[in-house]
């Protein structure tokens, strides 16, 4: 042992010390690098995630937009770019949920942030979706990554970009997409899956069974249900689903008919009284109809003659407003066919749309200066605007 120590040259010791020193100097550098790496993930999270953009698409073509972003807390207000020109139900909150006042000018909202560091905006717009035949198209150009929640029973039939992710949330497709322009084509309620068809058939069957147990006879509904089952066995799930729904509504009608018949038969009034009552009721109804007809006759022509109204050509409107949605063009075409003016109720009857949906469509066309709304006899008279008025 002693001999070895004596043999070891001093220089060897120096080399070892040098190595230790180098390692000691490197260690903090390596440690600093690791710390930087760890910190970077936090910094990236903090810097990279302040913006959130979510689109929720509804069956009627309306899109709900949720947008969250960081803003300069030292500035009294902040400009927010909105998706679409027709903005409805806009609410802007700060990070604490405090409601912020805002002014919308076309597709920009000026939000009075007054010290807030984050803003969250919620609004609806019909401008991101168009429809051609049965196919709906969602189009957006975003500067950040975003998500889209498609309506229930919708199937994507075209997509211009690769999604980052997709998952099913409550029977709805939630798709994450990268920033940039994207177009998604989808169809609603066309795909009849075996599950949805089974459900529809089961529902109709249960309803018919309930009615049968209470003594209501439903031969028409049962026949329709049999058709549904037949289609289901042939793999025509979409048709089977429709037929099952029709069977249920037929059963409802049959129930109503049975109830009304039993109500009449339960009355023990003499036939003569019933006949006299019927005549009086019919007379009263006839009088009311005559009166209404007279009043409506006296109002509608007045409107036309008073304004010397000439129906504008639909093609001219299409040329001036090429960006109109297909369903809006259909409405314009119908109004044009009807001489340039119709009551809103006629539009609802024609397009079988719920009141609110039709009202939104009408308001959209009014905003586009394509139509004007006039109140006539407590009804909305929708008139196509003249092209020169539209151009303005």
């Amino acid at each position, binding site marked *: 042992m002693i001999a070895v120590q004596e043999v070891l040259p001093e220089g060897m010791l120096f080399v070892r010390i040098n190595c230790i020193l*180098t390692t000691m*100097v*490197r260690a903090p*550098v*390596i440690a600093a*690098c690791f710390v*930087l*790496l760890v910190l970077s993930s936090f910094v*990236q999270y903090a810097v*990279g995630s302040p913006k959130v953009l979510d689109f*929720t698409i*509804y*069956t*009627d073509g309306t899109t*709900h937009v949720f947008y969250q972003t960081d803003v300069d807390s*030292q*500035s*009294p*207000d902040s400009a927010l770019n909105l998706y679409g020109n027709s903005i409805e*139900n806009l*609410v802007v909150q700060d990070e604490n*949920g405090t*409601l912020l*006042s*805002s002014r919308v000018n076309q597709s920009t909202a000026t939000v*009075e942030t*007054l*010290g807030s560091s984050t803003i969250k905006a919620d609004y609806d717009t019909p401008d991101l979706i168009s429809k*051609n035949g*049965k196919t709906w198209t969602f189009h957006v150009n975003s500067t950040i990554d975003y998500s889209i929640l498609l309506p229930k*029973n919708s*199937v*994507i*039939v*075209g*997509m211009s970009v*690769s*999604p980052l992710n*997709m998952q099913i949330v409550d029977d709805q*497709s939630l*798709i994450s997409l*990268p920033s940039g322009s994207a177009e998604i*084509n989808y169809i609603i*309620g*066309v*795909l009849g899956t075996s599950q949805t068809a089974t459900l529809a058939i089961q529902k109709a069957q249960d309803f018919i069974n309930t009615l049968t147990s209470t003594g209501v006879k439903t031969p028409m509904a049962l026949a329709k249900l049999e058709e549904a089952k037949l289609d289901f066995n042939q793999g*025509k799930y979409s*048709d089977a*689903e*429709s037929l099952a729904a*029709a069977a*249920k*509504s037929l059963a*409802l009608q049959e129930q109503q008919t049975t109830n009304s018949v039993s109500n009449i038969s339960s009355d023990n009034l003499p036939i003569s009284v019933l006949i006299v009552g019927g005549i009086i009721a019919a007379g009263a109804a006839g009088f009311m109809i005559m009166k209404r007809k007279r009043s409506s006759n006296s109002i509608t022509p007045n409107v036309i003659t008073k304004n010397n109204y000439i129906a504008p050509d639909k093609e001219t409107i299409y040329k001036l407003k090429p960006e109109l949605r297909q369903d809006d063009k259909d409405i314009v075409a119908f109004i044009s066919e009807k001489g340039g003016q119709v009551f809103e109720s006629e539009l609802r009857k024609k397009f*079988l*749309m*719920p*009141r*609110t*949906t039709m009202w939104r469509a009408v308001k959209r066309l009014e905003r586009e200066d394509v139509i004007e709304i006039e109140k006539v006899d407590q009804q909305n008279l929708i008139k196509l605007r003249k092209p020169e008025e539209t151009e303005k």
Partner: protein
Amino acid sequence: MKALAIIFLALVGTLIINGPIQSYADPQLDALLQIATQARENLKMNISQINNVPDEITRLFKQGSDETDALSNAIDKKDVVSARQHFLSAMNFFKTTNDKINSLNVTQVNNQQQTDTLQLQSEITRLAKIGETLKTIAITNHASFDFTQFDQLIQKAKQDLDNGNISEASKSIEEANHIVIDAHQSLTNVAKQRTPDRAKDFTEKQIERLDKMGSTSTQNSMTQAPKVSTTSKTSSNFTSYENPKDTVAKLKKLAAAGKVDEALKVIKSFEAHQK
């Protein structure tokens, strides 16, 4: 030694910059296959319901279907680039196929009642969601708005729809929609009413902040006098209140006079110059 440290730092830097990009770049391949397969199944069903299918539609659909198979193979091989290409190509063929089917105009007679029900269900969901958002905002902002009738109408609309009573459901939805409009208006008014107070608070906080800034810049100017003077000389477009001290004086004057709107303009202008 120095070279090693530089290489190390460069490596770490590259990791920091490229790390998140790589993790975002890989799409979930299963999602691509799921979307393409759904589209294929749907179109297959639609085509099966057409009597004399034109050759063009059959060809386009087959091309899309082949691309979907190729996508599936690429996913098995974990070939992301190829999978993405096949997905986009498949979806393009399916879109064209769908457009061609649409142009045939042989759409089956839709069950109008079913369409109405779907539309109304969607309306109810939309309104219920808006209602929930507005309710939360009303509670957070201590704004009194009664949503009881709204809740009842939504419940009634759901029941009517379940019973197949579309016209009644439609009426309830319309009424609920009016309540949403009223609630929205009411909350907008609340926000507007509270804005002057918020503006006043904001102005006061900014005065405080700029005051601190002013005292710091005064200290700096004492040590770095030439630098400050150069800045003010070169920027001829600046207003007199570009200096925090001047700005504070002006803001205090405006706040005392109750001219909060003008004070906000001054703050905005100052902030713009600071940037």
